[in-house]
């Protein structure tokens, strides 16, 4: 893909050929030119979609009614193609079906670049794309399903009517939920057994002469296997050609941040600065802090010290909830002085780093508080550290004990531990929120510790009205040094162009 700054319009006549089906296997990469803005936007939107797929998939049984409803909503709000025909006039203003499909196509390939690098990233990406694909395939009409299979060279023959008749009894007894009538009506596909291993392994299909006789509604399993294999291979190939892409300095920072991207508010500018007093912090830590910050605060109070990782994570969080620089200095000094550090040493060594956090030293970057993603994925704690995400980094037994100490109910603890086992750390924290605030549904999708605090205060009627400030979500959280000056100017320009994308950054 070539990326000059200008956007080129695609010739109208080829429109219909390129995207003639709302679903695709992503076999061919896009060949057009797009602007950096679009590059970024598309990537971010698809990432949001995939994250929703993940979250909704954990909260509801996959492909149940609620699942479908929720996912439908996400699709429309994010403008991704679902079912409509290309020429469908039902589109109400906003993006055309063609545009949606184009976005679907391009955004998938961009995310491949970001997610091909490690085993974990690949696994996550493949899992979400598969769930997404399964959902979309399931929503197709029967005719569209067949269309799709043919267009993609899945040369699975349908079983002739005579053969179906002669095998009727066998077909009925081998597949779930079939009757004489359905066998007659539905299409059956003859698939080599090597392509239908899941069905063969569990004996849920009729086998004859090395072919599995798959009923129409099961064909999605086969298609999914095919999809997974192709995507897996493609990602491996992408990883090999990645160095060439990464050498493009316009793309490198974006791609490396996408896989750790936090796509919501960044809590860097708070209108409620100064509305918190230091005396309130102890009480607030029990009521409105997420577990990680409560943990850090407790460690600080007990040991009168925190190491660098802990100071950064907690310090920035405190800034995010409204502490001023002076308050922060006072807070940290008073605590450290109780320990092994005397006031002088504090002023010499630690005060600098507090001021640095507030953008008053060095590069003068106003650092943004860490999102959950950042806390979970980077800088794991080692012996003597208290930072990180307790749901991710604590031993489950210790986590259980801690939750018991905090008077969480046993059934609640079990639910949390289940989520942790499934590696859904943010959902576990959300559950913790629900249990400690005594609500059924948190009402938001947790991805930032400061968000936890804000929502908690809202719920408890804490009176801290935080005005939402919009900022570029892709702004690096620590090091803008990755971007050279020209591209920084470029992204500033892109930022202006993205003015109308405020809608991305609203909390649910």
């Amino acid at each position, binding site marked *: 893909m070539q990326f000059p700054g200008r956007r080129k319009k695609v010739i109208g006549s080829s429109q219909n050929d390129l995207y003639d089906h709302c679903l695709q296997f992503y076999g061919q990469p896009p060949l057009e030119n797009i602007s950096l803005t679009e590059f970024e936007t598309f990537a971010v939107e698809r990432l949001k979609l995939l994250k929703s797929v993940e979250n909704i998939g954990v909260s509801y049984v996959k492909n149940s009614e609620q699942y479908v409803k929720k996912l439908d909503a996400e699709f429309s709000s994010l403008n991704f193609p679902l079912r409509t025909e290309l020429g469908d006039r039902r589109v109400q203003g906003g993006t055309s079906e063609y545009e949606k499909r184009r976005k679907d196509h391009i955004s998938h390939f961009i995310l491949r670049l970001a997610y091909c690098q490690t085993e974990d990233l690949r696994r996550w990406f493949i899992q979400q794309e598969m769930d997404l694909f399964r959902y979309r395939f399931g929503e197709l009409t029967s005719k569209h399903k067949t269309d799709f299979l043919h267009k993609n060279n899945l040369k699975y023959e349908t079983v002739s009517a005579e053969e179906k008749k002669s095998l009727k009894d*066998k077909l*009925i*007894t*081998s597949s779930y939920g079939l009757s004489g009538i359905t066998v007659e009506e539905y299409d059956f596909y003859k698939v080599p*057994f*090597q392509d239908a*291993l*899941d069905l*063969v*392994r*569990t*004996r849920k299909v*009729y*086998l*004859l*002469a*090395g*072919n599995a006789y798959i009923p129409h509604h099961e064909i999605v399993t086969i298609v999914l296997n095919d999809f997974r294999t192709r995507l897996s291979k493609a990602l491996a190939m992408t990883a090999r050609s990645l160095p060439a892409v990464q050498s493009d300095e316009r793309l490198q920072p974006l791609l490396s941040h996408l896989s750790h991207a936090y796509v919501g508010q960044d809590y860097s500018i708070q209108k409620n600065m100064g509305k918190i007093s230091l005396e309130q912090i102890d009480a607030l830590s029990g009521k409105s802090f997420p577990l990680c910050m409560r943990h850090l605060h407790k460690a600080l109070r007990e040991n009168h010290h925190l190491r660098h990782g802990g100071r950064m994570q907690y310090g920035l969080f405190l800034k995010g909830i409204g502490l001023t620089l002076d308050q922060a200095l006072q807070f940290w000094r008073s605590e450290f002085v109780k320990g092994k550090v005397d006031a002088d040493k504090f002023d010499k060594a630690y005060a600098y780093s507090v001021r640095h956090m507030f953008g008053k030293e060095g590069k003068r970057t106003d650092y943004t508080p860490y999102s959950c993603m950042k806390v979970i994925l980077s800088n794991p704690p080692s012996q003597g550290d208290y930072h990180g995400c307790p749901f991710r980094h604590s031993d489950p037994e210790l986590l259980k004990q801690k939750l018991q100490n905090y008077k969480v109910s046993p059934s609640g603890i079990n639910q949390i531990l289940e989520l942790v086992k499934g590696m859904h750390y943010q959902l576990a924290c959300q559950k913790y929120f629900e249990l400690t605030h005594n609500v059924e549904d948190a009402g938001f999708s947790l991805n930032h510790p400061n968000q936890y605090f804000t929502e908690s205060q809202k719920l408890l009627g804490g009176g801290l009205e935080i005005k939402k400030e919009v900022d570029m979500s892709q702004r690096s959280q620590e090091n803008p040094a990755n971007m050279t000056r020209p591209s920084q100017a470029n992204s500033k320009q892109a930022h202006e162009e993205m003015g109308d994308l405020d809608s991305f950054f609203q909390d649910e």
Partner: protein
Amino acid sequence: MSTSDYDPACLPDLLPLYYRRLFPFSQYYRWLSYGGVSKNYFQNREFSFTLKDDIYVRYQSFTTQNELEKEMQKMVPYKIDIGAVYSHRPSQHNAVKSGTFQALEKELVFDIDMTDYDDVRRCCSAADICSKCWTLMTIAIRILDRALREDFGFHHLLWVYSGRRGVHCWVCDDAARKLSVAARSAVAEYLSLVKGGEETVRKVVLSDPIHPFINHSLSVVERYFQQYAIVDQDILGSKESVDKVLAVLSPLCRQMKSFTREGSSVSYDLHFSCVSVKSNSKKGGQYFDKEIMLQYCYPRLDVNVSKGVNHLLKSPFSVHPKTGRISVPIDLKELDTFDPFEVPTISLICEELEKPRAEEAEEDDMKDKENEQEAGERRRIRDYKRTSLAKYVKVFDRFLEAMARSRKGEMLKKSDLQKDF
């Protein structure tokens, strides 16, 4: 007498003779070359030998039939295993960059071992077998052979007696040799019905709808059940054994009121009357009789043997050191009369070799003097033909013929497609 008093201590003397004059090297080589269609198929095949004093050597490979013969005659292995066809010559695997030496293909194999049936055998246990429990192998072969051919579409199956207490199946089709680990494991699971170890009492659970595969298998079991289980194994013969049968069902039945058996009918019916199961959602209980039959008779596979592409399995025509019996191919046409105790031992065939020869033999000797190398082969062929090994080599020959014909058919098809005349 078949055993001819086999004594393991004689192995060091018998084995060299066996490898020099009786082991069917040319057929063996023909098998593993698969018509020479794939380059280096034989050269990249791994063999492993167990030598005297239990010395085990892996990654043996050979470039020609001649080299194979010479090495085997030199090393005199007590046991021979066949492994996978690798990406490089196994004997040079250390010279290959790590990570690039990989197992590529191997026959799909199954290993049925009588010890896996100890919980349902009354006549023997562990390594012992007798004519009463051998029926289990017959049933296993019939069920698996049918399924592999009819359900999976395989054609070239070699069933081999392991030499002591079980049978092996080598599925040699092209498609079978190319199967992935996942596919092998899926096939093995499809074929598995008896699940659970020591702690599981009820090992077969059937529910609606019953898959056609299970029905086919049941019809095989039913054919043998009367004779095997009721008569030979006498599973209803004593209170103790009856209790064992009932124990399988006890989680489901509150109370066994009575049961009867029909001694004379071919298809056996078990009647149970039970107090109905308490509000248990599972409909369990309607297929008691089928489940019992399957638990007592259905083949028990070791999935791990079938799964791995690089798994090593005992070679056909190798000797079993403990029993002296040769691992011979089984002729499925004579399956019901196959008797493991009639399988020749190495001592028997060596003895048969030493018997005085007929007059025609002298003429052959004259011809031999003319051409040494061919003579060696001809002599070997004449030799095994004089022993009890002959009929088993014939079975092997027929198997190889069938594969050759099939390969020819494939090539014709291909050249037709390419319009190559």
